[in-house]
């Protein structure tokens, strides 16, 4: 049965002497190799030189603060319910009097965790968030020797304070977020 007319009969005739010393094939192969010496290199020297991220790159998450440094997240749970990998968990708490400078609204996320081992960086949490609280930054999740290093707590995810840590905040805002490395 013939499915296409592109099939070719395998030539099983014995090789001639010229063919059996493979000289022509070796030269042909070397030609390909040498041609690449003069081409533009596709690799970069990584830690020294870094590639630009695409504008739609989705990397490590950041939890946003407002301009006064209060946390935006109200633990509404929409990111967790939108998450297809079920990577996000949280526990909410009520803001006490005197904590108004810490949290923007009456309810806040006391615990907020993203399991980066589960996360598929789809960005649905960012899309679901009604409070502009979670963003996917232009950073990779750094490698780690242990699995527990991939459980990111709220402290690991929060953006630096815009007033107290102005420099770090500006750096984070400019795109490349230098998230504290986990031990």
């Amino acid at each position, binding site marked *: 049965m013939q499915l296409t007319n592109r099939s070719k009969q395998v030539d099983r005739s014995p090789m001639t002497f010229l063919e059996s010393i493979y000289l022509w094939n070796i030269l042909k192969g070397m030609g390909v190799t040498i041609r690449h010496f003069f081409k533009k290199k596709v690799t970069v020297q990584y830690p020294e030189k870094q590639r630009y991220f695409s504008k739609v790159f989705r990397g490590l998450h950041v939890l946003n603060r407002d301009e006064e440094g209060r946390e935006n997240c109200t*633990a509404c749970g929409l990111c967790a319910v939108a998450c297809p990998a*079920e990577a996000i968990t949280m*526990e909410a*708490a009520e803001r006490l009097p005197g904590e108004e400078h810490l949290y923007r*609204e009456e309810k806040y996320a006391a615990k907020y*965790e993203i399991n980066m081992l589960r996360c598929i960086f789809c960005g649905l949490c960012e899309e679901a968030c*009604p409070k502009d609280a979670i963003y996917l930054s232009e950073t990779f999740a750094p490698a780690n020797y*242990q699995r*527990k290093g991939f*459980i990111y707590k709220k402290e690991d995810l929060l953006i630096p304070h815009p007033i107290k840590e102005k420099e770090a905040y500006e750096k984070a805002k400019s795109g490349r977020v230098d998230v504290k490395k986990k031990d």
Partner: protein
Amino acid sequence: MSEETKLFKVTIDNITVEVPPGTTILEAARKIGGDVAPPAMCFYSKLEGSGGKCRTCLVEVAQGSEKDPRPMPKLMASCRTTVMDGMVVKNITSERVIEARNGVVEILLINHPLDCPICDQAGECDLQDLSYGHGTEGTRFEFPKRVFEKEDIGPLIQLHMTRCILCYRCTYVADQLTDKRVHGILDRGERAEISTYISKAIDNDFSGNMIDVCPVGALTDKTFRFKNRVWFTKPVDAHRDCDKCCGKVVLWNRGDEVMRVTTRDDEWGEVQSFVDEKTGEKKPGWICNTCRFEKKKVADWVIEGETNIKRHSVIAQNKYQKLVVPKDTITEVMDGRPPKLLMDIHDESDVNDPAIDLSLINGPATSKTFNNTSKDKKETTKKITEQE
């Protein structure tokens, strides 16, 4: 009664039903069911006198009755209009009704704070469902929304007056179920508000039912406040012997923790009726405050099984009905040894800490609650042992 009561024929959205005289259009439409039934925010069939306030159930009466086939000039509130023989009603087939309902939703949302991310009712809120169906994306209201002074109405029920749509259901509950009503509507018109007189606490038995009856998040369970989102808890039907109420409830669990106890709801979001074993009467299954607020342990209840939830509800997310857990063969294969985990998530995660039992805290968790975690305890014990 020798005479047979004559049934009235009503046609709603081209579907004809026969109902006894005195039935309202809304209840006739509910008999048909599905999308034909108009939404209702204030009407509650188990509460006498409710309805007629929110105007979401407006319908067009295209033919008054067989004898008088003139259409009614204005849209009628279907919860308050009784049927006539040969009446023809248009609900979702009428453009006028849809337009009017959109307008009603806009008016209801004028003073609503739209703080759904904070509100504990989110996910089971009638107003949320209604505005998804009929609401517009934006608002035309440019003025500050009304605000109220925060008021404490007791340790069990949380009042958020800004969310209230003044449906009066909770006052009917208090009038018809409890011994003495201590709350009501103060002031009139735009300034009307639900309140207790001179900040008296609501502590009547059965007063907790006003939480379930509230179509929005104005009255919420204080013992459940901020503890979990509704759609992360798993509802199971359960019952217990209670001398005050029917004891048939829905438990909203997180794992083995009972986060919240509510009445069992029927398909219209109203409390289910049960046949009383002693009298044989069918009665609404209201539950008492002891069952609702104090029995927060699985051991207090006899679990009947999973509650049926509409598939399109957000509460049905990530819940698997009739789930069969496959047999774990690893320990069997490994001669009884448990598998070695590279990481136990419960050792690393701070969420759902065994040292903090959220279900047993009366009121919302605060930063104080989370200060005493099991990890802190471990560390302090470690420090103590090191010092010794």
